[in-house]
């Protein structure tokens, strides 16, 4: 129901409270928060810059969310993704799902972050002592997405 792409940080507790406020059909909430890791392989990063494709990003996230709602009985759903320059420890992304029972919320939450990583048009540029480098897509991310492909 809610997709946001923003430069500013977000408050996880406030987001969860707003997401579920007044909906007493909800019995469980699952969330995932991605943060900037200090190490890129064996190199230490000073910061990273997230670039995205304004317009397509929002559209891709909305499609991913709609797909999750088609597959699981969700009472509420949220995707917040940041862009711009972020430092180690900073929050990058938040995904939250709420449903009557825990299984739908937990599965849909895992699905959303896996799909987002291989479908939403974001790119990370890492800054290290040796210079800046675009992050390569990881095979493990495509493998994580493949497990959700319906037979």
């Amino acid at each position, binding site marked *: 129901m809610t997709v946001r792409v923003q430069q500013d940080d977000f408050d996880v507790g406030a987001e969860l409270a707003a997401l579920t406020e007044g909906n007493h059909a909800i019995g469980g909430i699952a969330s995932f928060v991605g943060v900037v890791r200090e190490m890129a392989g064996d190199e230490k990063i000073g910061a990273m810059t997230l*670039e995205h494709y304004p317009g397509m990003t929002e559209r891709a996230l909305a499609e991913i969310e709609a797909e999750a709602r088609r597959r699981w009985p969700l009472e509420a759903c949220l995707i917040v993704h940041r862009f711009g320059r972020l430092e180690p420890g900073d929050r990058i992304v938040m995904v939250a799902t709420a449903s009557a029972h825990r299984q739908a919320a937990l599965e849909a939450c895992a699905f959303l972050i896996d799909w987002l*990583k291989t479908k939403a*048009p*974001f790119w990370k540029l890492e800054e290290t002592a040796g210079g800046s480098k675009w*992050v390569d897509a990881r095979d493990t991310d495509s493998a994580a997405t493949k497990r959700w492909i319906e037979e």
Partner: protein
Amino acid sequence: MKLLYFAWLRTKIGIGSEEIEPPEGVADVAGLLDWLKGRGDGYADALANLSLVRVAVNQEYVALDHPVAPGDEIALFPPVTGG
């Protein structure tokens, strides 16, 4: 048509977007990429390995045989790395 370049495609080509008018024979994405490669070293370098290039036409992922038309917004970018 409007072309958009992101991440290392943008840095290799040297610009983030441009308006172009490809010649009449360019009918699909593959033809467009072929034509773009001839526009300069930056383009040739960015498009040297098409297995690393993703294409969106009007903000939807497409394959190389997807048609292109005047007025389209066409984005070229590497595999995504968000999340």
